[in-house]
């Protein structure tokens, strides 16, 4: 076994990455960037970024310009039509397909990834909300504010109909408080467990009383709102929803929880230490909890490209399914997006139906007996085509030849893993398909 020695770091743990002999800009790191920050990349995109270097590559991702192929000309209009049809039905499986379509074909994979991250942070399930229109609305809000200062997102969520239904806010009335929203607001959305007491939860619930549905809109009904003075986290005032949000946003624990959330999303097991999280939290505080700043800082950092971060994450079902289709350029004809969403559900990530308010726990919990078998089956299905709604099987030789790699048995390992093996021989179609299935279902292909 190879032992990794982590260099003792002094100075800024978020110092930018500049390629050097120890950490060269190579295919492995290009693949890493796209699998972590987007949903994998095509061969052409990888080669382009390999040539252009990290700065240009990272900027393109941040600006939503990382994809050079596979984006339909009418993407935005078509995506909207898909969502509209999901609402008209109404049909949650079409809404899932809409989101998968956005991840697969949209120009801005980083934004979709961040939307997914916030879906896990403010985890709301249509299982209880039972309203496709409100779930879409929440999703659009998460998307539009995914890189904003966190305060904007938090305040929007505290008025988001789906979230409020999910956490029983309409039942939270002056004199009959329901603590569900107050508790999750503190424990999951802002502070994290620890810095508050049970009494703080009770008092926060009072501050959040009075929100009620008028049609599909949420309004504060003064007669249902507790306007009394409360003491929360040692501060006494007549708190309302925004006042409580301001108090929580100001608390240093919130910046730490956000730093944890971002690191949890973009780093592998053990790839960041306490000091780095603390430094990122400090930076967020200095930048008005600006998530965009945090993302850019992380993606540009040396820490992000450190060996200790390469391949140290378990690919989520979305990473695995969308990333595979994307890297193999299965754009035209493309697999059925409702079927892809269904595969993700079977593998443990049912979009719009997180398992509970804590979101998907992620990491090693993605791998269960059922999902491990499911991933192997997906590998076979996507190459065969028939179980993902395609009439034809995937042709590995054709894709390799298209990129002038027809004689390179390492082509698929390079494309998918940024590594030189395992090899996929490209001499005969049958064996090359089998080898590709084997590669896709290998342990290495489950990590990003």
């Amino acid at each position: 076994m190879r032992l990794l020695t982590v260099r003792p770091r002094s100075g800024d743990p978020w110092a930018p990455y500049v390629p050097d002999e120890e950490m060269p800009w190579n295919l492995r790191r290009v693949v890493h960037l796209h699998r972590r920050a987007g949903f994998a990349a095509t061969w052409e995109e990888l080669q382009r970024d390999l040539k252009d270097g990290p700065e240009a590559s990272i900027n393109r991702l941040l600006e939503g310009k990382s994809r050079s192929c596979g984006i339909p000309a009418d993407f935005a209009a078509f995506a909207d039509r898909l969502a509209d049809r999901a609402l008209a039905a109404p049909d949650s499986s079409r809404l899932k397909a809409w989101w998968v379509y956005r991840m697969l074909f949209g120009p801005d994979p980083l934004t979709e990834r961040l939307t997914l991250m916030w879906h896990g942070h403010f985890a709301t399930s249509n299982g209880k909300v039972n309203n496709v229109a409100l779930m879409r609305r929440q999703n659009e809000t998460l998307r539009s504010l995914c890189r904003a200062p966190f305060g904007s997102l938090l305040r929007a969520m505290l008025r988001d109909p789906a979230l409020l239904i999910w956490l029983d806010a309409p039942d939270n009335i002056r004199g009959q408080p329901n603590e569900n929203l107050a508790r999750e607001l503190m424990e999951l959305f802002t502070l994290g467990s620890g810095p508050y007491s049970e009494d703080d939860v009770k008092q926060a619930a009072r501050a959040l009383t009075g929100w009620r549905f008028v049609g599909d809109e949420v309004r504060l009904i003064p007669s249902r709102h507790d306007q009394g003075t409360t003491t929360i986290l040692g501060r006494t005032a007549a708190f309302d929803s925004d006042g409580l949000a301001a108090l929580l946003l100001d608390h240093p624990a919130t910046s730490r929880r956000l730093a944890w959330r971002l690191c949890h999303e973009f780093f592998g097991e053990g790839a960041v230490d306490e000091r780095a999280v603390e430094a990122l939290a400090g930076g967020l505080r200095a930048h008005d909890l600006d998530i965009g700043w945090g993302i850019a800082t992380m993606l540009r950092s040396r820490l992000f490209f450190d060996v200790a971060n390469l391949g140290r994450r378990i690919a989520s079902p979305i990473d695995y399914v969308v990333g595979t289709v994307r890297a193999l350029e299965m754009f035209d004809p493309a697999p059925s997006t409702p079927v892809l969403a269904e595969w993700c559900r079977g593998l443990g990530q049912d979009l719009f139906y997180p398992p509970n308010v804590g979101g998907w726990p992620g990491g090693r919990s993605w791998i269960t007996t059922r999902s491990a078998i499911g991933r192997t089956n997906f590998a076979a299905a996507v190459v065969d085509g028939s179980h993902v709604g395609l009439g034809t099987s995937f042709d590995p030789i054709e894709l390799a030849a298209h990129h002038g790699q027809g004689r390179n048995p390492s082509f698929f390992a390079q494309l998918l893993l940024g590594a030189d093996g395992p090899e996929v021989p490209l001499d005969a179609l049958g064996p090359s398909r089998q080898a590709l299935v084997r590669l896709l279902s290998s342990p290495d292909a489950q990590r990003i």
Partner: protein
Amino acid sequence: MITRRCFLARGLRDSTLIALAPTLPGFLARTAHAAGPEQDGRILVVVQLDGINTVVPFRDEGYAKYRKTLRLPEKRLIPVNGEVSLHPAMRDAGKLLESGRLAIVPGVGYPNPSRSHFRSMAIWQSARLDERDHTGLGWVGRGFDEGPPTRDGSPAALLIGPDDPPSAIRGRRSVSAALDRLDDYALIDKEAESRPIGSSSAGDDLGQFLRRSLLDAFTTADRLKALGDARGDAAYPEFELARRLKLTARLIKAGMGTRVYYLEQGGYDTHGTQLPHHAPLLEELSRSLRAFLDDLAAARLADRVLVLVFSEFGRRVAENGSKGTDHGTAGPVLLAGPRVRPGLHGAYPSLTDLVDDDLKVTVDFRRVYATVLKNWLGLASTEALGGAFDPLPLLHG
């Protein structure tokens, strides 16, 4: 004839998996010692009914008085003791009782009972009486919130059936799921079984975890396939509940780490013409249960399994004008398995000493839950049940 053990051993020998086993101590230990499931870890199977009318207090003078058209002839009843009997359709439950595998707790309910299906089921599933506490989480899910995760990453609780997991098994942190067919555990690519998994160059902890998990998964798939192929599998009757219990038994035999299986049997809401509708349901229940427990006994797994059968309420004591019964309050809870203390636990509530025409509740349902959480699954029960409830002496040490 090829036994399951031979089949599996041969399958493994033929595959290249075995060649990689030396790098995988956990896998090696498991397969070396048993080509079958692990023997530890107690399992609870919950069968949820919607309304029940099952245990007959035939000696109670109120029985003849209130059940004019629905009264069951005494000579066909299946005796439990001198006072109480089981419905004639429950012959197999009678056999379970005879063999010491059935316990009956009569009069189970909660204070100020609700006769609404929705509310009452929410109370039973959440173990919370106040409607404001019905937040979609349940007693099993909350119980696992405080327990360790499962050994193999399987969901702690699994609904067996076509629906979504019910709130009873949903937790704030613990994982629940639903499963209706075994297809999810079958490898569609025939070559997958014999595929080398160890091509990973990464020898780090995460790489080892992935290799071990994939091997474990393939081994489970292998076992389930072998179980499915095996002839002479225990005979189950042709009922939907039996199908689900058979599927549950397969998962248990394959060594899945899931600790609670939740099943539902509907149709008990017999507001009208109860006699011809009720008997087949009880027959389905009791025959399916017995087949399940016999199947597990043959596989030497029965000692690890306890079945809890409940419904959200009993029926009104007096029958209605449609030869049926309306929603009532207290009802019996059944516990089945070789580790129960068999027989009737406590007196059946009197049919002549009623509250608003309904039976008096004599046992709080949360005491039954406390019994299975603490004494069977070894979980803390206070948080799960929203208070401290004493377990009942329903199980052997």
